[in-house]
């Protein structure tokens, strides 16, 4: 067979595989949206869930998902950033960093249900945080930290070594070089990593079932004092998220419109992640422009 023909076959096969993947994804997305979109209404998005009756919403779950996401990100991002900077910019390659990297690799492939059970035993029981947003946020931090660290480290890797030398040659310290030269240039790439991991965190259920709990007590959205038990901001209250809600309805939901609510919730979850993606990308571009005047 001549090489021209080989090339054609190879390209055809690759196109076929890529097309198949796109097709599967579109079919999934289409199915979720087609069965979910008709359920959506303002009432559905804002009303609290009902346990036995028709017509419940996912307002509380939606809020919980975002609140948990923000908390988990607020805890894990600084740690991941610090770890990545240390690993890539400061640490020398020796057995300590090898151990850290191996640990990160193993942690990143840990099944999320194991993270959830660990979170239950450690945060919920041992540290007596109970089923709470805080327990959930810590569990999600454990779940998120390895991947986020890896992705930030990869972002730093994409910035040329010459950029660092350029900074040092101007008499900047390593820290100044990192904060003034490397990080601004790495922002878009870091942000992409953050978005991807935020999507994972937003859709995570198994790690939260045993930590943030499966109940969503009614919230008083007029009360923003985080110390009140019915306040949405109270980090010590149990908080069922959207993903956990979907799992729960499908496994033990006894309301008559369980299927409809599950479809609607799934659509909301997907749309929220999509919106989050677009928004973050937009912000990333703006931020990069401001930092680099590109």
């Amino acid at each position, binding site marked *: 067979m001549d090489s021209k023909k080989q090339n054609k076959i190879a390209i055809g096969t690759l196109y076929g595989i890529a097309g198949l993947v796109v097709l599967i994804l579109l079919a999934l997305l289409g199915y979720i949206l087609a069965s979910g979109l008709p359920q959506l209404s303002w009432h559905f998005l804002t009303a609290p869930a009902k346990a036995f009756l028709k017509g419940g919403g996912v307002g509380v779950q939606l809020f919980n998902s975002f609140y948990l996401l923000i908390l988990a990100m607020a805890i894990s991002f600084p740690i991941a950033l610090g770890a990545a900077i240390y690993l890539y910019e400061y640490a020398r390659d020796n057995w300590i960093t090898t151990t850290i990297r191996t640990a990160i690799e193993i942690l990143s492939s840990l099944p999320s249900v194991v993270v959830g059970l660990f979170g239950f035993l450690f945060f919920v029981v041992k540290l007596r945080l109970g089923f709470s947003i805080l327990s959930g946020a810590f569990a999600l931090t454990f779940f998120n930290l390895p991947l986020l660290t890896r992705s930030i480290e990869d972002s730093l890797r994409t910035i040329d070594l010459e950029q660092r*030398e350029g900074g040092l040659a101007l008499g900047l310290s390593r820290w100044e070089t990192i904060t003034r030269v490397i990080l601004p240039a790495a922002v878009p790439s870091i942000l992409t990593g953050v978005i991807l991991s935020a999507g994972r965190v937003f859709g995570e259920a198994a790690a939260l079932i045993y930590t943030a709990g499966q109940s969503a007590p009614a919230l008083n959205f007029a009360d923003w004092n985080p110390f009140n038990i019915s306040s949405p901001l109270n980090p010590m209250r149990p908080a069922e998220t959207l993903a956990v809600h979907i799992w729960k309805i499908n496994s033990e939901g006894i309301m008559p419109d369980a299927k409809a609510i599950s479809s609607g919730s799934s659509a909301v979850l997907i749309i929220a992640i999509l919106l989050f993606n677009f928004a973050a990308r937009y912000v990333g571009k703006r931020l990069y422009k401001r930092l680099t005047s590109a």
Partner: protein
Amino acid sequence: MFINNDVTRATAMQERHVVQPNDAGHPIILSTEGLHVFYGKKEALFEGDLQFGSNQITALIGPSGSGKSTYLRSLNRMNDRIATVTGKIMYRGVDINQPAIDVYEMRRRVGMVFQRPNPFAKSIYDNIAFALRLRGTTDKHELDEIVETSLKQAALWDQVKDDLNKSALALSGGQAQRLCIARAIAVKPDILLLDEPASALDPVSTSQLEDTLLDLKQHYTIIIVTHNMQQAARISEYTAFFNQGRVLEYDTTSQIFTNPQVQVTSDYVSGNFG
């Protein structure tokens, strides 16, 4: 007769020939004594005792892997953390190769421009101004003035004066390299180290860069590593020939190119190897 002549010439050739610059009019500003550089256990530079006169251009030439870049990068301690450098680097009477030296301050005196242009992902203006701001120059007029003078000295001002707020990443290779020079001289160094600054540039940009360097000589002492022997011949007063981690010959550029005293140098400058 001819054969005899060749033999006498060969015996007259030396192993090593070093003539340090005459410091009349150009006081020695930088010199190295007993410099050795190790990458791990591997020794990359065995000896390099050189002196550099101020406001002159010295070229470091030699085949790949001869240690010339390693030597250059040791001069402003860019090899810290990468290699072990022993020996003395005397800058204005102070040994800057000792732990007590503030390397960040020292690097502002001994600036460096690299092989590949490395403008930061910032505006043209900020590429030059941000290091100054970090060191406390915040006055807008003062910054504007330094940016302008630096760009003029690097012969880039006329091309970019209307685009100072545009990204430096949009500049061509030659312009980007000039920006890097402007950036390096903005912090007012004494010495400018250049590590093959023209190797990524086209011939026109290269010759412009050489003109710029000849102008800069009035204000700075320039040490340049180059693979291009014509370049060394065109712009430098002194040339050091490196081979296998040693300085084999150091003399005025005209001596090195017209009357080399070491056989290897002669082979190298006449293009027989390297």
